[in-house]
């Protein structure tokens, strides 16, 4: 009996610890969106590689934006060009660094899944800020799994099914 109780206590402890750790999300203040809401707010969900990242001032020199070139491997939902340029608030120009707290950050060469929608001027953006970007990384068993964002923990092989189910 004691062994069982000890096992339960241990399991509960680990569960609580995992829940506490996974509840951390970076952002300013954002509404937490469900996968269904993220899909409904997106025109496409793409699996892509980050080809380049470039910071630039806007015309009025009031804000720095980062332009992220994505080479799209495939659209997991919706339609997408093979090449997408996302605009993200914040970035670095000539050593001057601006951070928009909660905006996703990209690195050249990253393998990513991105929920894509548009800013009001039509430029592609990441839906839900950092909720809409996940890195694709191998787990211990070498299976590709999504890390970060709304799709955190979902295997790449199962994401299409989860996206399909999200609309039901």
């Amino acid at each position: 009996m004691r062994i069982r109780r000890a096992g339960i206590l241990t399991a509960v402890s680990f569960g609580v610890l995992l829940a506490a750790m996974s509840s951390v999300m970076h952002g300013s203040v954002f509404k937490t969106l469900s996968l269904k809401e993220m899909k409904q707010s997106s025109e496409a969900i793409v699996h892509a590689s980050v080809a380049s990242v470039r910071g630039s001032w806007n015309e009025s020199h009031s804000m720095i934006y980062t332009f992220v070139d994505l080479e799209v491997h495939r659209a997991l939902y919706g339609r997408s060009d093979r090449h997408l340029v996302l605009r993200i608030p914040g970035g670095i120009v000539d050593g001057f660094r601006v951070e928009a707290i909660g905006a996703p950050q990209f690195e050249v060469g990253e393998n990513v899944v991105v929920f894509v929608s548009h800013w009001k001027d039509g430029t592609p953006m990441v839906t839900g800020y950092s909720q809409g970007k996940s890195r694709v990384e191998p787990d211990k068993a070498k299976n590709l799994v999504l890390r970060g964002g709304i799709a955190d923990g979902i295997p790449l092989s199962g994401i299409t099914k989860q996206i399909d189910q999200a609309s039901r």
Partner: protein
Amino acid sequence: MKTLSRYATALTVILIGAIGAASAYGLFNPPRRWVPTTLPRQVVVDSTGIFTINDVDHGVSQSIIAVERWNGSPVGTLLDAVSAPVSGYVVGDGTSVIYFPGQFDSNPDCTGSCLALTVMSYDPGSETCCGNTDMKTMNDADVIFNTAGQFWCSELEDQNPNDPCSGIEYYVEQVVTHEMGHLLGLAHSSLQTAVMYATSATNENKALTSDDLAGRNFIYTCSFQYGTCQGGGGHGGDCRPFCYE
């Protein structure tokens, strides 16, 4: 058997302790703060207010109160809020604003699921020490609200029996307080009751918790000194001060 039970109990205590430690305020990566000579930091609250807040000045006075919630012992006055017209924000201009875009703003950076966005700049080549923690020096921070895409209310509006805050509205006080925590250098707390927790629910208006204040006190009561840059450093470099010397 008894040993196993003790082991489990000890493990539980350790894990709960670990959760307690994890459930605390956070600092940005890299950590950053305002240096003492730039404090108190003036924050200009857009006198336009939020057009959907139905109180005496569309939430401006309540926003000022919320900014100044971060002041007090032992840190003194960190933030000084004033009200003035704000037509936008410029990163790096040294003036901190809380910008409430009008109903017809064509290109806000905070849209959709964003309630409010803090945009900050810091010198990556700066080198300061806060106790044993390396810190960068902030040189500007602005806050942009999503006024058109979300529903807002204030504590004053809530006192109006004819128009209390409804279940779909966010308290401007809570969101301003949260963003001012970012402006002071706090990242998100994993403690759900903290103002600095990552998400806000509608109809929720938290007071600053001991966790929020512990974060503020850590940053602004440390033994502050300018560090010595290791390696190349300099403006735009990756400076690491010798805070451990």
